[in-house]
Structures are given as C-alpha cells and as structure tokens.
C-alpha cells in the first residue's frame, strides 16, 4: 500500500485523466499512458490504478449515458479531484526541486 502517496503508474494514470480534460474513461487513458510512456499498459492495470486512485480520493467516477457506438453500453467517466490535483502538483514540485539541485551541482 502506498497510502496517500502516488505510485509511478498511478501518477501517470492520474495525469492522463487530467490531460485528457477530465470526464474521460479507461480506453483513452490506457492509450494516453501507453503513448506517452512508450510502454505497454494493459487495461487491467489501468482499471486497478483507477480503482486505487478512487479509493485514495484522487479521482471520482460516475457512469455516463448509454451510447449507440458502444452497443448501447455506458462508460465509467473519471475526473481528477482537487486533492488528486494537489498531490500531483506537490510531487512535481518535489521532483523539480531535486532536478534543480542536480543542475546547480553540475554548474559548480
């Protein structure tokens, strides 16, 4: 368990949901993660990551209306919560800080 922290894959998934403009569902998230990381990501891993994120309160989900193109089946739509966004930003800042230190170290 990673508690309230984000694992790497969870972070990718969370950012993907955000990057896709929220109100997105598992299929685009899977493709986004795969394309941007260049690694294969199975749909099962995405489901699991989304489920964990939801449990931690970083995303929330709801069912969409049924659509004709999916044989009338609904989608589970995901949205990043403010707490999810905050956590991702904090993580980014921590990384940036470390990289800055590295860059300065090189200069000296």
């Amino acid at each position, binding site marked *: 368990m990673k508690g309230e922290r984000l694992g790497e894959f969870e972070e990718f998934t969370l950012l993907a949901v955000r990057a896709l403009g929220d109100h997105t569902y598992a299929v685009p998230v899977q493709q986004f993660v795969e394309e941007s990381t260049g690694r*294969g990501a199975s*749909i*099962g891993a995405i489901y699991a990551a989304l489920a964990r994120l939801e449990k931690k309160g970083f995303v929330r*989900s709801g069912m969409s209306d049924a659509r004709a193109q999916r044989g009338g*089946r609904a989608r589970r739509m995901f949205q990043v919560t403010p707490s999810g966004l905050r956590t991702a930003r904090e993580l980014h800042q921590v990384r940036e800080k470390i990289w800055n230190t590295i860059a300065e170290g090189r200069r000296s």
Partner: protein
Amino acid sequence: MSSQRPPALARWLLRIQPLGARRAEIEADLLELYEVRLQNRGHRHANWRYYRDVLSLWRAPGEPQTDPSSRTVARRGTSLDIVRDLTYAGRMWRRAPGVVTVAVAGLGIAIGFSASIFSIVNGLAFKPSGIDEPSSIVRIYRGSEGGYSSTWLYSEFEHFRHASPAVAVEGWLMTLQRFSAPVDSGQGQSISAMFVTGGFLPALTRRVTAGRLLTNADDSPEAPPVAVVSHGYWVRQLGADPAAVGRIMRWNGVDITIVGVSASGFRGTSESAPDLWVPIAAFPRVMGASPRDVDAVPQIAVIGRLAEGTSWRQAEAQLNPAVASLPPPAASDRDWQPARGVHLDSAEGSLPRSKRGAIVAALALVTGVIALLLILGCVNVASLLLANGVARRRELGVRIALGASRARVVRQLLTESLSLGLLGGLAGLLITLWLLPVLTRLANAPASLDVSMDGNVLAFLVAVSIAAGLGAGVATARHAAHDDVNSVLKASGRGGSAGRLDRIRATVMGVQAAASIVLVVLAALLTRGMVAATRVDIGFAADRVLAVRPAFPPGENGRAVARAFIDTATERLHGMPGVVSYSAATSMPYGGATRVTIFNRPGGRYTINYNTTDAEYFSTLGLRVLRGRTYTRAEVRDRARVAVVSEALARDFFPGEDLLGQPLSRVVEDEGDALIIGVVSNAITTRLRERSEAAIYLPVTNWQSASLLIRTASSPSLHLATIRSALQPLDSRVRLEVTPVSEGLASQLGESRTLASLASTFAAVALCLAIVGLHGVTAFVINQRSQEITLRIALGATGRDIVRMLLGDSLRPVVLGLGAGIFVALGAGRLIAGTLYGIGPADPISFGASVLILLLSTIAAIIVPARRAARVEPAAVLKQV
C-alpha cells in the same frame, strides 16, 4: 472494421471472469480498444493485445469499488467447488501415480509432437511477411511487346520511380549476393545480402527490433555504407546482442556499419529474409561495378506502396506514361525489348497460384496428423480413466447415494481429467521445447524460418490441453452419468452397465486402430516415395560430374580476369588424366538456376530454366542431341544468336511442328532474333521436386558468372584434389569451390528423406501410443472378466481357448477400426500425392505392410495380458468370490 471480432478463446476467457456489475462497461471498453488497434496496427496486434488485456483482468481484477454485491454467493460457491474438485483430483492422482504418469506421458507426447508440427506450420504459413498493411503493397511488372516480366533495367527504374505521387516506388536487386565476412574481428560467416533502395524497408514496415531501418539518406553515394540485419541473423549469428547495432562488417574491403535489426518475423518481399539489407548506393563500392552495368548487375524488381486512397488503376495510369516515354534500352542491353507500360499485381500473390493448392493440401494433411496424434493421446488417457473410473464406481455410487447430484459427480470427473490434460500440456510444452530444434534441424529448415514459440503456439498448446483433458474425460463422465447406483452398490464385479462399457471400450479400441493406421500408412507412403525418388530419372549421370565455381573479382577488371581464367583453366584441363570432358556454363546442376516465368500462357505460369553454356556442355552433362545440332565453339565465341531447347520445351511449345530455325521469341518474347537450332534430351537440373524439364540453352556471353562443369572418368572425389590443385594456382585473385554435382543431388533428396523420417517418427509415436493404449484396455477388460475367465477354466476351458476368446473379442473392434482408417488413409494419401515420387497414393505395398504391422502389434499388445489371464490358478480367484 467492426466486422472482425476478438478471438473466440479470448472472448470466452473474458466471459468466465467474475467481473460482476462492471461487466458491460469493461466488455465495451475492451471492444473499443480492440477496434482502435485493429484499425491502427492490424488484427494480429489487436488479437494479441486483447488476450493480454483479458488476462490482465485476472491479475488485477479491478475490485468493483462501487458495487460490493457483484460477487454473488452462488459464484463464490462455484469457485469453492472448483477448488474442492481440484484438491480432490490431486488426492486421487496421488493415490494412483501409475495412471497419472502414463496418462500425462501419453498426452504430453501427443501434445508435444502436435505443438511442434504446429510451430513449424505456424512459422511457414501463419506468420505473415511482417509487412504493414500488405494490401497497399503492389508488385510492379514491366510490360513489353509480348508480355510482362518481374524485372526492370536499373536505368529504367531510376527514370520512372518518381513519376507518380500516388505510389512510392522502391526496388531490390534480384540476385542475393552471398559473401563471407568477419563481423568485427570474428570468424568469417557466409552471409546473404539483398541490395535495396533506401525507402524499400520503410515502405514495407515501420517496426524494428533495434536501431533503425534504412533511409533514403543511406542510399546516396556519399553516405557511409550501412546495413540492416534480419532478426533471424541477429539471433543466430550475433547472439541477439543489443549492442550489435554499430558493429562493423567487412565485405570486399568495405566496412559496413550495422544500423538496425529488423522486426521479428519480417521477411520483406521474399519467401525468407536475407541476412542483410544494404542500400543499392553501396553496390559500386562493394561490388566494384555501377548498378547501371547490365552485365555486372542483376536486374531490379520493383514494388510500390500505394498512397492512401489510391487504387491500382490510378497508380497504373500515372506510371504508364512515364514508362512509355522511357528511352529504349541501350545497345549493350540488346536482349531487352523496350518497356511499354506497367502491370500492377498483388505483392502478396508472389506465391504462384498453382502452389497454393499444394500448400492447402499440405496444411490439411498436417492438421490431420496433429488431430490423429491428439485423438490417440486422448483415447489412451480415456481408456486409462475409464479403467480407473470403473474401479471407482463404488465410490462414485456412494457419493450419489449420499446426495451428490450426477452433474456434480460428472464435474468432479471432468475436473480430474482436465487437470490431467493441463499436466499433459505442461509435459507437452517441455517436449516441444526439446523437440522443436531437433525437428527444425531434421527438416533442414532455412535459418530465416522463425519457428520460435509465439502466442499462436502457446494458444494452441493451451487449447489442445484443455480439449484433450475434456475429451479424455468425456467417456468416463458419460459412463458415470448413466450408471445405475443400485446395481453399483450391490454388485462388486461387472455391473448392470457392462454392455455399455463394452461398447465404449470397443469404440476406444476402434478409434485407436483407425488413427494409427492412417499415420502408419502415411509414413509408409512417404518412405516408399523417398526410396523411389532415388530412382527418378534426372536425365544425366550425376555421379561423375564435378562443378568448379570460381569467384571472380567484381567490375571491369574482373571480366578480364574471368575470361583469362576460364581460358587457361580449360587449357590446363585438356588432356588431364581422368578428365573426360569439360565445359563452361553459368548455371551448374543443383547450384541455383536462372529461370524465366511466362505469365500469359494458357494453362497458367510456365517456368523455363535458362542456362548459357560453352559448346561442350551437352556432351559433358551427357545430354543426347535429339534433333538438329548444338552450337559450336566458334558460335559461342562470336556470340551467335542461336539456341538449343530441351525436349520438354519443344513438346510444349511446338507440338507436332518442326521447330528448327524458328525464332526463340516464339517461346520468350524478350529473346529477339535468336534461332532454335537443336533439341536435346530432358534433364532435371534444378529442383527434383518440381521436375521442371523445360530448358533453353544459349551460348555463354558473361564469363564473369561462368563456372566449369567437368566429367571425370571415375568417381569425382578421386579427382577433386587434383583438379583443385591444378586450377587454384592459375590466378590468386580467383577463389575456387569444387564440388561433385552428386552432392547437390543428395541434398535435394535430403528433403524427401527428411519428410519420410519425420513421418516415420510420428508413425512410431502413433504406434507406441496405440500399443500402450490397446494393452491398457485389454488388461483392464481381462481384469473385469477375471471371474468369468476363472469359471471357464474351472469348467474345463484350456489356456488356449481363453486366449483365443480374448483375442477374438479385442480384435473385432480393431479390425473394424482398421477398415475405417484405411478409407481415411486413402483420402490422406491423395493429399500428399504431389510429394510422392514414383508411387501412387494407393500404393498396395504401403497399405498392406501398414495393416500387417498394426495387426501384429495389436495381437502382441493383447496376447500378453491374455496369456497371463489364461495361466491363472482357478482356485485362487474362486476363493475371492
């Protein structure tokens, strides 16, 4: 696009997953992903990823967060039952280790052998060429006065390749170049290289294993020479080393850097991938000749990738004017008629249509053999389980009496056999891993043939294991389902269901016999065919001919070297002891041939072997002159436009006509003004299997590609060393390869020998499985009837009577099975008729011998337990009653 659905097995795997309330949503997601991948990357990729996704749901089932009620109590009950069934099965098998060992071994052998055959077929037929969107790749043929040819002059190709924006035109030089090169400072290896345009590889695929593909930038004279190696070469010779990219090969003194490794399974436009793809721009540097030099350079074959939305017709319409306005071939290319237009054809159809039927037949046969082996394995295990099941009838009866439903008992039995099947599959996997390299070596498969285990093979293994497990359990389960509980509980010996049991037993034996006879007959046919093949009349005596293949330096310089070498070599050979005659020619028997295929002939494609020779070639090879004459030395020297044809060609093109003095252009339009002056006897000098005897012989002009054919007075191996030591010192720049022609012939025969030895192996396995199975069933039956047998003995029957009775009972179903099997074998024999030399598919000797072998084996399998039963001491058994 949505007309294609995900693989049925994967859909089934998805259906059996406990997804609860999220099922609809997840299924829709998966289908959507599938369709996107189908569109972007093709169905193979989409299928593979679909499997992965479905399996990933098992691994990370994505606990339904919002709907805890999804896992119903009933489902939990079922899965607990399955666990209980499996535990119970495990306990059962621990109690009967003998049964398990034999069953797993039998199934393992059957599954392992079938999976190995499947892998080879998979490598041959199901693995696609690795071309992305092959439907938009076209082969571009050169149209001239009389027909279409697959090759162009390089200068023409350069001229028209950029004529159409609708099609990206790329090409490759027709002849594979072979050379021996050390990689870095390692050992020299024989390498086959294909010269291609820079855009050739990118036009066919976007995928690489490592590094990059060739680009147009690589195909310029200023660019440093680079190469892409094939995946097969990389694995075999470079140890799949990721650092291979950047390594350097030396070829004719030119350093070539490896820049990439092709994707696994990519073989481009050929039947198998070359080791190396090199840009044509490197040709002058490596070969020392310009690609425009017609004598030095083989012609170029051309393909195109159609731009999206372009039809063949549009592309043809755009290319045609450019080709029609080509300048006529230069005077030096006088063999070439001016190009008039193009003809586009599917690049996928490079397999001649005539061959497709044979391949379908071969596939059907292989499928049949696989099915038969599996049936044998299943039937074996079924008979074991049946024996075991009958022994457990009391136990099962008690279960039913205590309230277990019949369905529950049947499921228990099926779980047991399924677990056996999966264990068998595991054994099969191990056997495949061991067997596959052996089979590939036996089959002498080309190194580029990728027979590695892939998703297809694994899916096959899993599916077959499940099917075999279930198939083996069906008989027992059916038996249990219909058993009468009361009689089971009351009786201790043969129950009320003995009649049905006998029927099942008889069926099992019959099926076994039928499956084995088919396999044994096929093996016998192939073996006999192989023996007959050694007697095929090839039209000349191959046992006293030697081929000397010199490798001349490339370029203008090489031409002079070649001419001088051939002249001095023939002088040296003249009057040499043991040398009867000799002649130069560009093609040596079984040493690769130049062939021309005529497309627009009624009756389909027609292939003609081409050879350019010196005057004495005919007498050296031992071909008889049937009509007219052959060309003289003077005619060869003057490059006279005369031709000699083979009897087969004369028969096919000039039936009942006097062909002497006819122009050769009546056969091949490109041949211009050459006149036919003679007919010689047929000879099979290319591939034994094809037996193509149509040949055209012309005076040799290109000495640079000439070899020497030498007829010796006695066995050529005696003269090999003498001839080599006489010729090698003539010119240090020329490397010589001296081989007896019979070696090439032997390797040709090797193919059918391999086929026969493969078939014999399978037949032997089948026979073993059948004997073990029959033995098992008979032993079981005798065990069941021990009381009856004892009674008979007690009442005065002799041991011989008992053996005769048991033999008769067991042989009846076997004979019926043999009868049915023979009919199947007759059909199967017709399928392989094309590979049989000299004997018919209904060869009575093969059939007779097979039936005899099987009958004798059956009798042996039955008689051992029968005699044991007959020796029984009546008192001992009667005491038990």
